[in-house]
C-alpha cells in the first residue's frame, strides 16, 4: 500500500516504527537469539561426531522416520473415505463431522495421548500401535479437509466421461479420480508427515526410550542427560529433514499438478447403495475420533479400575493431599489456574504482536516480506527447539528470565503469532486502498485514514486469531516442557506427570484434567467457528 514512492500520503515514520519494532524485536530476542545460542553452544565438531557415531541416534532417527511414514500412509488411507463422502454428497451430519474432526485436530497432543492410554489395555498403551493410532486420530482432519476441498471441485463429468468409455466405478477411481487427487494427497501427506515426524506430546505419553522421535530425544538429552551438544545436533538433523521434506513436496506437486477446470462444488443427495457406503465412511470417521475421547471421560469416572464408577478423581482434583500425609508434586487445580492465566497472557501477547506485525507488513510494502517470513519461522522450527533455545539463552544475568512469569506465555506467543498474522494479513491486504483514499479526501490524516479503513475489518480475524492463540497456548507442550517452573505447571505438563505416576487415582485424575482441557479447547474452536474463522490449525 505504501510501497509507492509517489505517495504523498505515506504513514508517518513514527507510526511504521511503532508497529514494526515490537514484533521484529520479539522475533530477534525470543527466536533468533535463542536459536543462534543453541547452535553456537551446542554445535561443535566433537558433538556432531559423537552424536552421529552413536547407535542410539540412528535408532531414534529410524523410528522417527518409519512411524511418520506409517502414520501418514494410514491417515491418508483412513481419511480418503470420509473425504469422498463430504466432498461428493450432502447428508445430515456433514457439517458436524467436519467440525468434530477440526476440533480433534486442535486438541492438545497430550490429551489425545491420554485418550489412548485410557482406551487401550495397559499391555498395549505403550505400543507403536497406540502412537500410530493417536497420529491417525489427530490428522484425519487434514486429509478430509485438504483432499475433500479438491475432490469437491473435480468435475463429476470427468468421471462420467470415463464411465461412458467403459470404466467401472473402481477403474474410474483408479485411473481418473486418484491421479487428479494426487497433488492434494501429496499436500495432505506432507502436512501429516510434518506433524508426525516432529510428534512430541503423543510420544512423551505413549512412547518409551526405544520408541522416541527426534523431537523427544532432543528433550531427553537436554533435560534428562544434560547433553546440550547432542540435543543441538539432533535439533539440526530434524530441521534438515524438514527442509528436505519441503523440497521433495514442492517437486512432487510440480510434477503431478494438472490443469483442470474446477467445477463449483455440487454435492448430490446420496441414493440407494451409496447411502450404505457413506454411512460406513462417516460412521467410521466419527468412531475413530470419538471412541478414544469417550474412553477418556469414562476412565476419569472409574478411578479404581474395574471396581465401578465414582467421582473420586474429579473430587480430589482440588486436594493437594491424596490421602493424609501423601502429597503429590502436581496440584491439579493449580494447573488449571496456571493454564488459564498463561493462555490469557499468551493470547494478549500474540494478538498485540500479531496485529502489529500485520500492520507493519502491509505498511512496509516489499520489505515487509522479511518480517512476514521471519515470523513464520517458529512454526517450522518445532516447539522443543524453541523452548530449549530459550532455556539455555535466558539463564544468565541480565537476561536470567527463567523464573519470570512471562517467559512461558512469550514462548506460546511465539508459536501463536503466525496464526494471528495468517488470519489477519489476508484481510488487511484485501482492503481496497481507495477506502483509505476516501478518508484522506475527507480530511483524515494518514494514520486516521488508515485506522478508519483497516481496523474495523480486522476485528473478526483478530478474534479468530485470539481463539487460535488461546487454544494453542492451552495445549502447548513442547516449549513448555523446558520453560515451565515447578509449582507453576500448565495442564499438559500436569497431565503428563500424573500419567507417569503409578496409581489408578493419579491416572484417573490425568483423564479428568484431559477432559477439562479437551472441553476448553473444543469450546474455543466452536467460538472461533461461530465468529467465522474456518482455518483452525494445531500447534
Amino acid at each position, binding site marked *: 500500500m505504501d510501497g509507492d514512492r509517489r505517495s504523498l500520503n505515506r504513514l508517518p515514520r513514527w507510526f511504521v516504527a511503532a508497529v514494526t519494532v515490537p514484533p521484529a524485536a520479539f522475533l530477534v530476542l525470543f527466536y533468533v537469539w535463542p536459536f543462534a545460542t543453541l547452535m553456537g553452544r551446542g554445535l561443535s565438531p566433537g558433538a556432531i561426531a559423537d552424536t552421529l557415531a552413536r547407535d542410539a541416534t540412528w535408532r531414534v532417527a529410524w523410528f522417527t522416520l518409519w512411524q511418520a511414514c506409517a502414520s501418514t500412509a494410514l491417515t491418508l488411507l483412513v481419511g480418503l473415505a470420509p473425504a469422498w463422502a463430504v466432498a461428493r454428497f450432502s447428508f445430515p451430519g456433514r457439517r458436524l463431522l467436519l467440525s468434530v474432526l477440526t476440533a480433534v485436530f486442535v486438541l492438545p497432543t497430550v490429551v489425545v495421548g491420554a485418550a489412548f492410554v485410557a482406551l487401550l489395555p495397559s499391555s498395549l498403551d505403550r505400543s507403536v500401535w497406540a502412537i500410530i493410532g493417536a497420529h491417525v486420530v489427530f490428522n484425519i482432519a487434514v486429509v478430509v479437509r485438504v483432499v475433500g476441498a479438491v475432490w469437491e471441485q473435480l468435475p463429476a463429468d470427468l468421471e462420467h466421461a470415463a464411465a461412458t468409455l467403459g470404466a467401472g466405478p473402481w477403474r474410474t477411481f483408479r485411473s481418473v479420480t486418484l491421479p487428479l487427487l494426487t497433488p492434494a494427497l501429496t499436500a495432505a501427506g506432507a502436512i501429516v508427515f510434518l506433524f508426525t515426524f516432529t510428534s512430541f506430546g503423543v510420544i512423551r505419553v505413549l512412547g518409551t526410550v526405544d520408541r522416541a522421535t527426534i523431537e523427544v530425544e532432543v528433550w531427553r538429552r537436554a533435560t534428562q542427560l544434560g547433553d546440550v551438544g547432542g540435543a543441538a545436533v539432533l535439533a539440526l538433523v530434524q530441521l534438515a529433514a524438514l527442509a528436505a521434506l519441503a523440497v521433495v513436496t514442492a517437486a512432487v506437486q510440480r510434477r503431478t499438478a494438472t490443469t483442470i477446470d474446477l467445477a463449483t462444488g455440487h454435492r448430490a443427495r446420496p441414493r440407494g447403495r451409496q447411502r450404505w457406503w457413506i454411512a460406513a465412511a462417516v460412521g467410521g470417521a466419527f468412531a475413530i475420533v470419538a471412541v478414544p475421547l469417550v474412553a477418556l471421560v469414562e476412565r476419569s469416572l472409574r478411578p479404581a479400575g474395574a471396581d465401578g464408577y465414582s467421582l473420586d478423581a474429579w473430587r480430589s482434583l482440588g486436594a493437594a493431599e491424596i490421602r493424609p500425609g501423601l502429597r503429590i508434586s502436581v496440584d491439579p487445580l493449580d494447573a488449571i489456574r496456571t493454564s488459564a492465566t498463561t493462555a490469557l497472557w499468551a493470547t494478549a501477547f500474540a494478538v498485540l504482536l500479531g496485529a502489529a506485525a500485520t500492520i507493519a507488513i502491509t505498511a512496509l510494502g516489499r520489505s515487509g516480506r522479511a518480517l512476514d517470513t521471519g515470523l513464520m519461522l517458529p512454526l517450522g522450527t518445532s516447539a522443543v527447539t524453541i523452548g530449549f533455545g530459550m532455556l539455555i539463552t535466558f539463564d544468565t544475568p541480565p537476561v536470567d528470565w527463567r523464573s519470570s512469569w512471562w517467559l512461558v506465555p512469550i514462548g506460546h506467543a511465539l508459536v501463536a503469532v503466525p496464526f494471528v498474522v495468517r488470519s489477519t494479513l489476508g484481510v488487511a491486504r484485501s482492503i*481496497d486502498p481507495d477506502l483509505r*483514499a*476516501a478518508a484522506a*479526501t475527507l480530511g483524515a490524516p494518514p494514520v*486516521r485514514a488508515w485506522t*478508519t*479503513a483497516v481496523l474495523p475489518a480486522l476485528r473478526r480475524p483478530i478474534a479468530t486469531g485470539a481463539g487460535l492463540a488461546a487454544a494453542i497456548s492451552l495445549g502447548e507442550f513442547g516449549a513448555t516442557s523446558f520453560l515451565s517452573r515447578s509449582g507453576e505447571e500448565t495442564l499438559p505438563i500436569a497431565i503428563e506427570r500424573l500419567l507417569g505416576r503409578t496409581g489408578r487415582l493419579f491416572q484417573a485424575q490425568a483423564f479428568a484434567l484431559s477432559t477439562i482441557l479437551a472441553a476448553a479447547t473444543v469450546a474455543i474452536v466452536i467460538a472461533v467457528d461461530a465468529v467465522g474463522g474456518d482455518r483452525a490449525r494445531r500447534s
Partner: protein
Amino acid sequence: MLDVRDLSIAFDGRQVLERWSLHVDHGETVALLGASGSGKSTILRIVAGLLAPDAGTVEIDGRDVSRLPTHRRDVGLVFQDEQLFPHLDVARNVEFGLRMAGVGPAERAARVDEMLALVGLEGFERRRVDKLSGGEAKRVALARSLAPGPAVLLLDEPLTGLDRDLRERLADEVAAILDRLRTTAVWVTHDESEATRVADRIVRLAGSSTGTGSTEGGST
C-alpha cells in the same frame, strides 16, 4: 478555482500525460471525457494528491497544493465504487469529513440533515451502507464528499454501474446540486451524453498510448 499546470506522468515507461494543463473557474463544472486508459482518473488522483506526478503543479484557489498530502488539499472525491465506510451508518459516513475538520456535534447533525435532504435521502441516517441500493449509495457518497464544503469536487465516473434511466435522472439531479451550491467540479466520464448533460464545458482526452500527450478540447 482549480489550476493544473504542465502535468506529466508515465507508468512503466508509458507516457500517460505530457505537459497537460486545465483551468476550472469558480463554480464551473468541467467534464473530462475520454476512453479508458486516456488518463482521466489519473488526473483526478493527481489533483487529490493520491498520486504524485513526474512534473507539474496543482493550485486550488490560488494556493499551490502540489506537495501537500491529500487530507490538507480541501478536495472532495466521489469514487466510482463509492468507498463508503462499511462499519459506519449513513449519517456517520456523511459527517466523517466534518469530524475530521473538528466540527461540533450539533452543527454536524444539522449539516448531515441538510446534505441528506439535498440528495433526497431524508430519514436514511441510521441505515447500514451495505443495505443501500446502487443509486442510494451514490447519493450517500456525493453527500459525504459535499458535506465538508470542499474547494474542488472531483467525481470519478460517479454514475457507473447504474442502469441507463437512473443514470440520466441522477446526472440531472447531481448537476442541479452542483449548480445550486456553485461547486467547482471536475467530472470524469467516458459517456458523451452524460458529459453534455452535467458539464458547463467538456474537455476531451485523447488516448495516449503513443505518448503524444493529450489535447484540450473546446467549450460547449
